[in-house]
C-alpha cells in the first residue's frame, strides 16, 4: 500500500480544479461558438425586420424583397436550378456508384480517382472552362459542331439555365456517388442472396432489394447536391447573368451593389436559410446520424454482378462523364492558360508561360490574394481543427455536461448558406466597435464558421478510432489527462487531425460565396480575383490562376492519400 500513500494535500487542489475548470471550459467554448454561429444569424434575423435607419420593426424589407416580380423570379429560377442539379447529379452519380461498387466493370480505380478530382474542382472553374468550350458562337465545341455539320446555330449554349444546370451537376454528382457507393458497399450480400433463393432474377433483385436499400443514401445525395446548387454563387454569376437571369445568390449579391440594401438582402436570404435548414433536417432523418462525411467505401462482400460485354459500355459511360467533368474543362483551362492571346487560335507560336508569370509576379492583386488565401486557409484550418478537436474530444469523452449543445452548435453552420452568413457578418463587423470589415479577418470568421461542421465531423470520426480505454489505461498507470492525451491520443489521433485540417484547408482555398460580399481591395482572395478577372474577360489570367489552384489542390490530395492512407477523400 505504500505506493498509494500519496499526500492528501494535493487532493483538494484537484477537486477545485475539476469544479472550476469544467464550467469555464464549457462557457468559453460556448461563447466562441455563439459568437461564430449564433451572432451572425441573430443579427441577420434582426436586420431583416429592421428599417435601415431608426427604431422599430418592419415588414417593409420583405415587401421590397418579395413584392416585386423581378425579385420573385430568381426564387423560381433557384428552385428549378437546384432541383434539376439534384436530379442530374443522381442520374450521373448513382449508376456510376453502382458500377464501381457492385459490378465487374474494369478501370474502377481510374473512375474513383477522377471522381475525386471532380469532387475537389470548384464549379466556378468548370464554368470558366465551359464558357471557353461551349460559348454559343466561339465555344470550341460549337465551332467544331458547325465545321462538321455545316449547321448555322450552336449545339449547346452554355449561357442558359440548361448550361448552368449541366456545369454545376458535373461537380456535384460526386456527392451522390460517395453516399450511394458507401451505402451499396455496406449492403450485406445475404440480403440479396436471400432474394435470389426466393426466386428473384438479377434485375428483380436490383429493383426490389438493392435499390430500395440504397434509396435513403441516394435521396440524401440528392438533397446535398440540391443544397450545393442552391447556395452556389460562382457558376451562376458566370453563366446566368450573361444569359440575363438571376438566381437567389446572385440577387443577394446584386442587393449589395450601390446603394447597398443590406436589410432587403437579409430578408431575401430567409427562404435560402429556411430551405437549407429544412432539407438538412430531412437528410439527417433519412440517413440516421451519418451526415455530410466522406465515408470510405469498404469492399462489398457480395460477388460483383457480371455485366458481360456491357461492362465496357459501363466503363465508356463513366469515362464519358469524367471527360465532360474533368478532361475537357482541364484541357480548356490549360489551353487558355498557355495561350498568348485568345483570338490567335491554335498554333505552337501561341503557346506561352507568360500568363503564369503575369499572375504570379506582375499583377499585384493576385500576389496579395495568393498570400491572403494561403494565410486564411492555414489559419482557418488550424484554428478550426484545434477548436473542433477539443470540442469533439470533450463531447465524445463526456467530460462536460452539455457537450452535446456544443456539438450541435458546431455542426449548425452546415445549414447556413455562405452568402447568407456573409450578410450577418457584414452587418456585425462593418462598423465599430468590432471593425473587421476591410481586413482578411472578417473573411477568416466566415471561413471558420462555414467549415466548423467539416472540422467537427472529421475530428469526431478520427477520435472514434481511438478507444477511450487506451487513454484510461495510461491514466490508471499514473499519467494525468494531458500526459495521456500527449502519449496516447495525439499519436493515434494525429493522422485523423491532419486529414481534418486538409478537409478545411482545401475548400478554404476556393471559397467564393462568402468571400464575394466580404472582400475589400485590401483583403482579396484567389477565388475573388479569379471572379473579377473573369468579369473583365481576361480568360488567360483566370485560367492560369485556376490551373495553379487546381494543381495545388490535387497535389495536396495526392500527398494526403499517399501518406495518410487511402482513406483520405477516398471515393
Amino acid at each position: 500500500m505504500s505506493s498509494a500513500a500519496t499526500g492528501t494535500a494535493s487532493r483538494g487542489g484537484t477537486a477545485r480544479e475539476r469544479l472550476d475548470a469544467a464550467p469555464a471550459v464549457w462557457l468559453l467554448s460556448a461563447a466562441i461558438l455563439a459568437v461564430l454561429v449564433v451572432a451572425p444569424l441573430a443579427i441577420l434575423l434582426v436586420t431583416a425586420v429592421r428599417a435601415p435607419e431608426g427604431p422599430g420593426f418592419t415588414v417593409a424589407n420583405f415587401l421590397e424583397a418579395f413584392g416585386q416580380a423581378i425579385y420573385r423570379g430568381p426564387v423560381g429560377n433557384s428552385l428549378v436550378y437546384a432541383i434539376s442539379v439534384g436530379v442530374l447529379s443522381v442520374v450521373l452519380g448513382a449508376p456510376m456508384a453502382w458500377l464501381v461498387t457492385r459490378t465487374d466493370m474494369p478501370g474502377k480505380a481510374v473512375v474513383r480517382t477522377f471522381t475525386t478530382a471532380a469532387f475537389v474542382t470548384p464549379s466556378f472553374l468548370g464554368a470558366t472552362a465551359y464558357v471557353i468550350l461551349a460559348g454559343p458562337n466561339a465555344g470550341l465545341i460549337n465551332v467544331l459542331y458547325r465545321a462538321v455539320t455545316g449547321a448555322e446555330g450552336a449545339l449547346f449554349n452554355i449561357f442558359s439555365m440548361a448550361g448552368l444546370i449541366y456545369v454545376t451537376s458535373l461537380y456535384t454528382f460526386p456527392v451522390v456517388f460517395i453516399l450511394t457507393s458507401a451505402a451499396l458497399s455496406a449492403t450485406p450480400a445475404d440480403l440479396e442472396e436471400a432474394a435470389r433463393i426466393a426466386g428473384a432474377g438479377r434485375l428483380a433483385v436490383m429493383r426490389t432489394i438493392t435499390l430500395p436499400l440504397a434509396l435513403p443514401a441516394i435521396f440524401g445525395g440528392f438533397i446535398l447536391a440540391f443544397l450545393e446548387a442552391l447556395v452556389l454563387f460562382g457558376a451562376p454569376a458566370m453563366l446566368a447573368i450573361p444569359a440575363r437571369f438571376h438566381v437567389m445568390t446572385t440577387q443577394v449579391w446584386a442587393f449589395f451593389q450601390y446603394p447597398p440594401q443590406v436589410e432587403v438582402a437579409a430578408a431575401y436570404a430567409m427562404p435560402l436559410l429556411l430551405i437549407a435548414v429544412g432539407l438538412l433536417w430531412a437528410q439527417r432523418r433519412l440517413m440516421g446520424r451519418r451526415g455530410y462525411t466522406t465515408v470510405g467505401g469498404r469492399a462489398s462482400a457480395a460477388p460483383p454482378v457480371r455485366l458481360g460485354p456491357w461492362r465496357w459500355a459501363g466503363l465508356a459511360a463513366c469515362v464519358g462523364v469524367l471527360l465532360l467533368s474533368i478532361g475537357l474543362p482541364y484541357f480548356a483551362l490549360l489551353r487558355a492558360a498557355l495561350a498568348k492571346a485568345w483570338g490567335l487560335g491554335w498554333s505552337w507560336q501561341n503557346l506561352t508561360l507568360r500568363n503564369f508569370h503575369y499572375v504570379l509576379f506582375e499583377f499585384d492583386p493576385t500576389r496579395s490574394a495568393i498570400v491572403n488565401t494561403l494565410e486564411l486557409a492555414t489559419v482557418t484550418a488550424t484554428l478550426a481543427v484545434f477548436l473542433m478537436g477539443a470540442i469533439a474530444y470533450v463531447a465524445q469523452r463526456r467530460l462536460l455536461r452539455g457537450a452535446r449543445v456544443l456539438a450541435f452548435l458546431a455542426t449548425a453552420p452546415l445549414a447556413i448558406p455562405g452568402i447568407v452568413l456573409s450578410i450577418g457578418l457584414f452587418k456585425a463587423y462593418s462598423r465599430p466597435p468590432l471593425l473587421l470589415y476591410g481586413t482578411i479577418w472578417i473573411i477568416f470568421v466566415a471561413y471558420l464558421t462555414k467549415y466548423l461542421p467539416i472540422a467537427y465531423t472529421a475530428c469526431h470520426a478520427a477520435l472514434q478510432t481511438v478507444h477511450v480505454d487506451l487513454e484510461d489505461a495510461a491514466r490508471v498507470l499514473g499519467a494525468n489527462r494531458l500526459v495521456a492525451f500527449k502519449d496516447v491520443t495525439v499519436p493515434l489521433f494525429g493522422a485523423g487531425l491532419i486529414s481534418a485540417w486538409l478537409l478545411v484547408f482545401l475548400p478554404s482555398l476556393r471559397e467564393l460565396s462568402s468571400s464575394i460580399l466580404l472582400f475589400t481591395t485590401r483583403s482579396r482572395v484567389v477565388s475573388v480575383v479569379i471572379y473579377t478577372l473573369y468579369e473583365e474577360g481576361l480568360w488567360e489570367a483566370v485560367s492560369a490562376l485556376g490551373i495553379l489552384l487546381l494543381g495545388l489542390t490535387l497535389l495536396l490530395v495526392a500527398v494526403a492519400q499517399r501518406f495518410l492512407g487511402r482513406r483520405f477523400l477516398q471515393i
Partner: protein
Amino acid sequence: MAAVRLQALTKRFGEDVAAVHDLTIDIRHGELLSLLGPSGCGKTTTLRLIAGFLAPDAGEIWLGDRRLSAPHETVPPERRGMSMLFQSYAVWPHKTVAENVTYGLKFRSVPRVDWPRRLRDALALVRLEGFADRYPGELSGGQQQRVALARALIVEPAILLLDEPLSNLDAHLREEMRFEIRRVHEASQITTVYVTHDQAEAMVTSDRIAVMNAGGVEQVGTPAEVYERPATAFVAGFIGRTNLFKGRIVADGRVACEGGLVLLTATAGEHTPGDAVAVSVRPHMVTVSSGAATGAPGEPADGAALNVFAGTVTRASYFGDAMDYLVAITGTQSTLRATGVPEPRLAVGQSVGVRIAARHCILVR
C-alpha cells in the same frame, strides 16, 4: 483489514436512473474479489468509481485510511496507485510491448536502471519472454491480453482492477486465462477487483464474489457460500441452475409452496409463520430413483431432515456426463428439475421417488 472500502456509493447517469445505489463492500487486503452480475447491474460503474474515472453522487471510497472518492472530491485515476485491465485490452498500437509494459514505471518513480529487470520479470510472469520488441499488431488476442496484464502488474499496484478482461477471447483461451489469472494472483498477492458476468470465471478466479443486481449488492461470500447458501432468489438463480419455489412459512421449518408442494427446510427457524419466502433447491441435490418412494407424497418421511415425494418423469435429457430430468410431483402442480447419473437412465412416464435433504432446501429472500 479492509484494503478498500466502498461506502454507500451511489452513482446516477441522467436524472433518475441510478447505475449504482447505496453500495457498500469491503475489499480485503490481498484478496481477489469478483463483482459478478448481469449486464447493467452496475459492476463496471463500480469498478470505474474505484478507478476514479467516475465521481460518486453519494458515498465514499477509502483506500486504507485515505479517502479516494467523495462527491465533489475525487482523487484522479493517476494518483490512486492502481492498475487496470480493460475489456478491449487497451494495448497502445503505436508502442512496442516493452514500451507498453514499462509505461507506468516513469510515473511511479522507478529508477531507470531497474526497468530492464522489472520488464523481464513482468514478461516472465505472463509468459511473454522474447516479445519485448514486437508491436501489438503482431500479437494474437491472448498475447495482447498478457501484455496488458504485464503492464498492469509491473507497477506493483495497490489495487488491480480487471474489467471483463476475458470477454474478447475465444472460449478455449478464456478457460485457460482463468487459471492464468488465478495463478498470477497467487504469485503476486495483489488486491484485485475483477468484474465479470460469467459465474464460472468468478468461481475459478475469486477468493470472494460480490453478486450484484440492479445497482446493489445481493450477497458477498466465497464461491462456495454464494453457491451453496445463496442469500437471495436472484443469487440462487444467477449462479448455477436451481429450482425456485415461492411460498409461505406454515410452521417452523416448513414451507407451503405455490402449486401445493410442502418443503421441509433447515433454516426456517428465523421466520415466523405467514412470512412470504422462496426456497432454492439445486437440481443435483435432488435424488431421483426408480420405484415408489416411501412416506406420504409431499410429506417428509421421518420428520428429521429429508423431503420425500413420489413423482413422474415428464422429460429426460441426455447431457453425456449427466441426465437432466423434469419430474412432476404427484398430488401437486409443482415440477422439479433434477440431475441424475447417466446410468441407470429413467424413462419419460416412469414413476419415481424423489428425495431432498432438508439442509439443501435453502430459504432465500
